[in-house]
């Protein structure tokens, strides 16, 4: 069981990172979107390893089945063949990449300094509700206000996006 768990973690992690790299470097944007989907799906697998069952399904339904569908639609809407032939990276790419790596090095140092200090608890003592119900409990008690505000966020997004896109129709 333990080795299976580790094997799965390594599989998902390698898949996620590899397809993330491919996503950023591919010239063909549809392929890029497919690689991002792969990354998101392997992240969902990681969530499952962390026993976040509900978030696993939210990730698949919302991120992969919803948001990425939006991306794919837009990619099909804009003409792709022109942008395929253009230069893919901007002029400052070297500086930008270097800066990003510096940032990464800082984080790496921070995590490295604290390595081993953080451990996952092996077992909990009390018998617990199921994950989905635990999330629902938290969502509808402690996080009720953010939950209502989320609906305002969605309302604003809906109106904003429709106004933005509608201009082309009208």
């Amino acid at each position, binding site marked *: 069981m333990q080795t299976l768990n580790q094997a799965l*973690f390594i599989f998902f992690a390698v898949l996620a990172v590899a397809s993330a790299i491919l996503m950023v470097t591919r010239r063909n944007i549809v392929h890029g979107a497919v690689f991002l989907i792969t990354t998101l799906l392997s992240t969902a697998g990681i969530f499952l390893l962390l026993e976040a069952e509900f*978030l696993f399904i939210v*990730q698949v339904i919302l991120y992969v089945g919803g948001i990425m569908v939006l*991306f794919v639609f837009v990619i099909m809407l804009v003409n792709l063949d022109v942008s395929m032939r253009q230069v893919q990276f901007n002029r400052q790419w070297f500086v930008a990449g270097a800066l990003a790596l510096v940032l990464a090095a800082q984080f790496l140092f921070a995590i490295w300094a604290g390595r081993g200090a*953080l*451990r*996952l608890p092996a077992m909990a003592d009390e018998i617990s509700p199921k994950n989905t119900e635990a999330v629902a409990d938290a*969502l509808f008690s402690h996080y009720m206000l953010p939950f209502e505000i989320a609906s305002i966020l969605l309302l604003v997004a809906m109106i904003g996006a429709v106004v*933005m*896109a509608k201009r082309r129709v009208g």
Partner: protein
Amino acid sequence: MIPVDYYLFLSLALFTIGVIGVLTRRNVIIMLMSIELILNAVNINLMVFSRMWGTVDGQVFAIFIITDAAAEAAVGLGIILAFFHNRETVLADEMDIMKW
């Protein structure tokens, strides 16, 4: 057992790739996709700490982040479509109408 560090390293890798994507690519759609990658890396962190403390707060936050990502993608892509309609391009460095 997989230590927490491993998850953090994974998250860091995804985050860095996302940052590099946002900073270096010219195509705005790919920049938006890289932002999704960054948000995703954050979600991994939330999830592993949620698991570590044995609470679900991190998971609830992750749901809100995904909601936020949906809103961001919707509006961002709406802007891209509107811009594409006007200028026939999706390249970030050609979006220079406001340059003086």
